[in-house]
């Protein structure tokens, strides 16, 4: 892996200076009417001729929407862009002819042979017979599928399909290529092959390539410049080297174990931040994000709420916690209540249990699992379930070797916190990503809509009080 990156980086430095802009994006914004989703939020950027440009971001960050607007599939809500000096609003036809697009989802006709798929594409793009015959042979050779041209594409493997789609995108001699998640769902060997092809296209044909991905290493290996997107916004745009350089120094990761009281962790974080030379401390969990959520008493996906809203909710919670009747009413209106409750720290659970002391009637009205937990706490039988995942502190600091002793001292001074493992390394692109987005890559974008649903439920709760 390392060698691979190294080779490419060397080659990259030999490139001639690129100045001409091939894509210019100005204040591009897209709002989906359905669900009022702000998918792309006022982005501006330029692509230089001959470069590989990566849009990196979690699912739902707005990468595909951006690429769809540039490929003139979607109309922007606001803003505009030029591709190959054609305006995407005024000349969609010309833009389409000058670009090749490979979609995230497969888009081949499985009931046609590979060659026929290409032929159909060439005709749709208005190529003459002699021209397309030659070109089809050429692109098939380029992706090493010339011996499989007569096969039905339904019998192709995932990697072959992807390669054929890239070939198809190249038939009409486009000046640039849009690749939307080109290696999604492919095995590592096939991914490597696709990367090689992409590199080859860039180097031999001087093709400008815009690629979206959520794989860090893909952006790192391929791209001349990387644009990190999240929530429809550009949060960083630079070369991979420069991005990593911004996080100079070291990254120390400390895994804690046997943490019984998670509410101690925020306190520890603020203590650690006071140490000289420490730039940032973030908390996550090994393998799961649950721990970070629990410390905030919020379910997953809600960390991006604005502080005011957060304060209001917390105040709301405090009020509910003072009166058993209010608490019961809240659990009825808010279906997520028992989920919240099970995630709450022991301290909070005990407080709720106290609330219901000598109040058996009201207790009966609570959801079943909440009732059982409270009864257990009251009788002293309750034990917090051992969580599989351990809290993980990610600390970025100027000089790891110097500061690590102090950090470890601080942690061992706090009660009940044991260190399981300590790791120190140079920043990777993943660290850069985490630094900017403040979280792990989300696997599903549906969290967003769930967040909205929860927010609406919260609002109703507030109004009905």
């Amino acid at each position, binding site marked *: 892996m390392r060698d691979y990156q190294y080779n490419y980086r060397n080659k990259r430095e030999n490139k001639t200076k690129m100045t001409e802009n091939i894509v210019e994006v100005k204040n591009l914004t897209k709002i*989906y*009417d*359905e*669900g009022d*989703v702000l*998918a792309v939020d006022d982005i501006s950027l330029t692509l230089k001729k001959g470069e590989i440009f990566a849009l990196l971001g979690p699912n739902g960050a707005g990468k*595909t*929407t951006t690429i769809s607007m540039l*490929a*003139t*599939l*979607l*109309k922007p809500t606001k803003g505009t862009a030029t591709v190959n000096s054609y305006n995407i609003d005024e000349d*969609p*036809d*010309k833009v*389409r*002819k000058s670009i090749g*697009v490979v*979609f*995230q*989802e*497969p*888009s*081949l*006709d*499985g*009931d*046609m042979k590979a060659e*026929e798929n290409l*032929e*159909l*594409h060439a*005709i*749709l*793009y*208005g190529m003459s017979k002699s021209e397309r015959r030659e070109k089809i042979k050429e692109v098939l050779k380029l992706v090493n599928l010339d011996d499989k041209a007569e096969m039905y594409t339904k019998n192709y493997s995932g990697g072959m399909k992807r390669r054929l789609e890239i070939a*198809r995108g190249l038939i009409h001699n486009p000046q640039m290529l849009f690749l939307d998640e080109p290696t999604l769902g492919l095995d590592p060997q096939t991914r490597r092959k696709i990367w090689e092809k992409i590199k080859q296209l860039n180097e031999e044909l001087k093709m400008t390539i815009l690629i979206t991905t959520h794989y860090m290493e893909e952006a790192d290996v391929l791209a001349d410049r990387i644009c990190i997107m999240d929530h429809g916004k550009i949060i960083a745009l630079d070369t991979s080297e420069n991005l990593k350089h911004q996080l100079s120094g070291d990254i120390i990761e400390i895994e804690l174990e046997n943490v019984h009281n998670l509410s101690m962790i925020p306190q520890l974080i603020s203590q650690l931040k006071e140490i000289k030379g420490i730039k940032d401390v973030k908390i996550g969990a090994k393998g799961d994000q649950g721990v970070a959520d629990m410390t905030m008493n919020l379910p997953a996906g809600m960390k991006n709420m604005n502080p005011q809203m957060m304060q209001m909710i917390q105040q709301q919670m405090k009020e509910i916690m003072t009166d058993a009747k209010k608490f019961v009413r809240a659990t009825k209106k808010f279906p997520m209540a028992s989920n919240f409750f099970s995630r709450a720290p022991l301290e909070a659970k005990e407080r709720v249990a106290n609330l219901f002391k000598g109040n058996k009637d009201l207790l009966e009205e609570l959801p079943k699992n909440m009732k059982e937990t409270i009864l257990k706490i009251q009788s002293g039988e309750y034990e917090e379930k051992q969580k599989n995942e351990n809290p993980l502190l990610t600390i970025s600091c100027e000089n790891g070797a110097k500061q690590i002793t102090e950090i470890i001292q601080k942690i061992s001074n706090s009660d009940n916190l044991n260190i399981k493992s300590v790791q120190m390394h140079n920043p990777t692109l993943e660290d850069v990503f985490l630094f900017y987005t403040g979280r792990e890559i989300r696997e599903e974008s549906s969290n967003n*809509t769930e967040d909205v649903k929860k927010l609406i439920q919260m609002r109703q709760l507030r109004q009905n009080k």
Partner: protein
Amino acid sequence: MSRKVSSYVKIEGRMRWEAIWVLSKRELLAFVRNKTRIISSIAQALLFLFVFSGGFFSIDISIDGVDVSPMAFVASGIIAMAILFSGVFGGLGIIRDRMFGFMRELLVAPISRRTLMTGKTLGVALQSLLQCLIMAVISVAMGFFGYDPSLIWRIILLMPIALLFSLGVVGIGLTISTRLTDFQSFGLIQTFLIMPMFWLSGALFAFNSVPEIMQIIMMFNPISYGVDIFRYVILGVSFFPLWVNLLVLSAFAAILILIGANSFSNMQIS
């Protein structure tokens, strides 16, 4: 991705004949290559032929005072049925294109939606024409219409009329398919649309042998006129005058194609 539903940018402009032809060719190739589909549709038609013409042997059918053999009567209805079935289901093939992502490739291409729609419609229409021709040749070969040399040019004459008839039918399929997103609704369409249209078209029984209420319902079914004009061409007799049949079928094709083009133009892809 599912929430990212939004109308796509459409390319305006001329129709491109080469593009239309390659899209039609794709439909034809899909039909010719799918042997199970050809065999099953022929088997179904033959089943109908034997069961219904067998049941009708004892009944005298007369159209316009001319006696018609039950075999010939049912066979001509079944040939018309081939158009209905393959036309609607061919139009529904768009759902497949959308589900397997191929529609996206078509929508990014620098061709107008009209070109796309025309190519698709023509392709499916030719597909059902082919199936209709197969049925006609089998029926003639089996002697359902007797052995008469004039049948050759009758079958040839049938083709342009079958094309007109199939345009309207394909329009039904296209209109439905641009609004559906999955295959689950296929059964519903079969039960509540295609079957009633088929049973109430007079393909299997004579128009003048049923109660008046049913006759009125049948008169509102455009498929009845398609079946009737097929009888006119093949057998030389019909319930409705030729000009009524032609008028209704032309209007049916024009209206359905317009509706189909409109829903195709507003089609959304998730």
